[in-house]
């Protein structure tokens, strides 16, 4: 590992470090934006810093980082504040207010730049995907190593962000999940909110030059949204988001090299790909996991229906064999029931006997418990709800699959006496 890093071309190394710093900072800030359903405020702020930058340039006459930073933070805060004021006092839906504010500010910024600073070249390409490759060459020595200027700026931004998140962890957590509780506890939710927005603006402008605005927006949203699918704990969400950010940087730069494409654009695409993987394969909230759980539940219900059917058949005691086809049809038919029957036979709960199906000893035990739960629920309904007898079966049919031992004990206390089948055996 160490050798790989040492053997790496320094430019490649610094590109990856720069992008990784952008991604981790964005992921940390994005965690709170995504949780608070404010992802788009990050997008809005990253566009709306433009007039702040233009004004700072007009007033100071330089492109030094400090005036730029101040201008951007002011414009970012203005965006958040105006959005809130228009939403609150002019009764405009929040998303529309945001759309009005950030597009107007962006338009203002473009006009200001064209009017006043027409000598400054506003190359859309540079704005959107930055000048990462040349920025990595603009180095200065730090502790005897040539370090790109942007990497230093971004490292400082990351350090400030990490310190902010660490220092205000508790406050951010409460404000994210329950702003009203935060207010009653004496935490100034508004102040935390605007501090976060100022940091987003600062991050935007620090990352802007290197990677362009598009990766900034992607990183404020994608890693956090990915992590949100993978965990329910805030600290894990932040850590997973950061890890996703680093992975995005490494994969993004290497895939971009293969296709000779801009790193910032490719990193956004990679971030989207990682998110898609999470959407599909997340252990709990992933689509595959949910489909599998659904399938498993369906199979269990079909199997239990078959068991119950066989039990009632044997209980009737006509001696005739239960035909497999009839049983499958009664349990819903189709591939699902057939698979359920196959699983029951493999588990040794049902067996073929002659021309029909029968329950094995262990199958009989399982089935009797099931039918017990069914009739328990029927008896409970009959006792507590004025339902006609022929309306008891179908709710009990659903309930028998979901009654856990706790509920069963409670119902047994309510319906103490033993009971027979309701009406005709079903």
């Amino acid at each position, binding site marked *: 590992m160490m050798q790989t890093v040492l053997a790496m071309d320094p430019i490649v190394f610094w590109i990856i470090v720069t992008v990784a710093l952008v991604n981790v900072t964005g992921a940390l800030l994005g965690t709170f934006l*995504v949780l608070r*359903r*404010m*992802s*788009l405020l*990050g*997008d809005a702020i990253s*566009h709306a810093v433009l007039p702040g930058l233009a004004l700072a340039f007009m007033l100071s006459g330089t492109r030094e980082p400090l005036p730029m930073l101040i201008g951007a933070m002011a414009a970012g805060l203005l965006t958040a504040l105006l959005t809130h004021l*228009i939403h609150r*006092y*002019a*009764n*405009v*839906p929040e*998303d*529309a*207010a*945001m*759309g*009005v504010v950030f*597009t*107007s500010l*962006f*338009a*203002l910024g*473009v*006009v200001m730049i*064209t*009017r006043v600073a*027409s000598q400054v070249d506003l190359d*859309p*390409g540079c704005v*959107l*995907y930055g000048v990462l490759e040349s920025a990595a060459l603009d180095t200065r020595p730090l502790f005897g190593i040539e370090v790109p200027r942007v990497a230093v700026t971004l490292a400082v931004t990351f350090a400030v962000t990490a310190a902010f998140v660490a220092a205000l962890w508790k406050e951010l957590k409460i404000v994210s999940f329950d702003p009203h509780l935060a207010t009653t506890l004496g935490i100034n939710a508004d102040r935390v909110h605007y501090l976060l927005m100022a940091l987003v603006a600062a991050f935007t402008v620090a990352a802007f030059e290197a990677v362009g605005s*598009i*990766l900034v*927006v*992607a990183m404020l*949203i*994608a890693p956090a*949204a990915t992590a*949100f*699918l993978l965990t329910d704990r805030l600290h894990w969400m932040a850590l997973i988001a950061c890890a996703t950010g680093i992975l995005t940087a490494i994969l993004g730069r290497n895939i*971009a090299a293969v*296709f*000779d*494409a*801009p790193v*910032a*654009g*490719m*990193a*956004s*695409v990679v*971030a*989207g790909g990682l*998110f898609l993987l999470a*959407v599909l394969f997340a252990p709990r*909230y992933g*689509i595959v996991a949910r489909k599998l759980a659904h399938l498993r539940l369906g199979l269990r219900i079909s199997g239990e229906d078959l068991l119950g059917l066989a039990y009632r058949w044997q209980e009737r005691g006509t001696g005739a064999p239960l035909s497999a086809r009839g049983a499958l049809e009664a349990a819903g038919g189709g591939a699902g029931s057939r698979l359920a029957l196959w699983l029951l036979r493999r588990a040794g709960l049902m067996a073929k006997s002659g021309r029909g199906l029968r329950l094995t000893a262990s199958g009989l035990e399982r089935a009797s418990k099931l039918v017990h739960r069914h009739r328990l629920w029927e008896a409970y309904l009959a006792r507590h709800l004025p339902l006609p007898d022929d309306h008891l079966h179908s709710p009990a049919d659903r309930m028998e699959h979901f009654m856990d031992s706790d509920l069963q004990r409670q119902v047994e206390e309510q319906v103490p006496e033993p009971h027979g089948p309701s009406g005709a055996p079903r």
Partner: protein
Amino acid sequence: MSGPAPWLAILALAAAQALLFAAVGANRVLEWVQTACASAGLPYNTVMVLAGSGLLGVSSAVIGSYAVLRRRSLIGDAVAHAAPPGIALAYLIARERNFFLLLLGALVSGVLGAAVIAWLRQSTRTRQDAAIGLVLSVFFGLGIVLTSAVQRDPTGAHAGLEGFLLGKTAGLVSQDLLLIAVTSANILILVWLFQKEFLLLSFDPGFAAVQRWPVQALDVLMMTLLVAATVIGLPAVGVVLMAAMLIIPGVAARFWTDRLSRLLPLAGAFGLASAGAGTYFSSVSEGMPTGPVIVLTAAAVCLFSMFAAPRRGIAAGILKRIRMRERVARQNLLRTMYELAEEAPDSAASLEEVAARRGWRAAEALRLLRRAERRGELRRTPDGRWALTEHGLQKALEVVRAHRLWELYLVEQASIAADHVDRDADELEHILPPEMVLQLESRLRSEGRWPEDRVPASVHPIESAAGEAR
């Protein structure tokens, strides 16, 4: 949903246009326009630019208004950002700058982006804001990757795809403008055909579903129209600012009216005005980009509406609050004068007494007293004190009656202690509707507790602001 008629109308519309353009060709249509312009003495190029951008302004404003109403404003932003990969792919496939194909590519990837947002919102844990942001940045990132592939292509260096980022009406030829104008016109016709359906979809989709309207299909249609408006706007105003064309006119129009039938034309007019003004300003001043100027014009209209609109505007709200405060002060003064007269029927009240009773500063009390005198509710006695006139007494009776009735009601019905009701009644008496006062009266009368022709006595000792009971 009135049967399949609107859907058939769409088909007929599409077929008629396809036939027209196949039979005569776009160039012939343009020639006709050119001849018409020449005979009317109008500059052909200006007419084309204004027609294209104007119709674009109207159609995006109208379809965008629905998005604003349905809290989907920023989906337009995401769709605009989702278009570039389609544009670049269309170029890579066609290998030439065919405007129609580029926009078709943009339409396909825009619709795909909108579909992904809907899918993420419905079937995953991702919320709408994150879904919009994801589609926006990831599709756009893909667009950058594909555009860089186009630019490496020897023929692609001058494909002019960057024009889509910030928009440039000057770069559009008349065939492009014709396509924009025709598409905009189609969007408007479809909105007109489906106005009833879109109205219900915007305000009560649940009811529409219960009526067995094809809500899903209508939703897809509306979304497709939004994407179409976005896509034709890209070459004129660019990716970033297209959202503004969709959102701002609708937001501005919303301040002026509560009716969709008025909101849509108004939003269309705002869209038209800002598109026209923006196009004009950017054409007269050198190097000024069209899109930002259009958006700033629209923003100015929106800002004006926000402050000046008669009912929902901020100025109207402030004015309403001031009027309310004046009314409350006036009624409080009348009641105070009545109470003072009730205690000492023979002597008029002094300025100090009035001020002390209400806790007003002397200057404030004097201002209110003088104003009431001008209204003829009070008169000044020769010794400089103040008394109710006959007219003022009538007004004061109304106010006191409402106040005491409400106090009685609170004591009797809401079982609030007598010494707590004054403050509550104080707040409510000014906004009690007359019907409510009558209702309270008749209730007391039916219980035989209504003092005929008189104001009911106060349920508590009347206190001055200083606190001592009288």
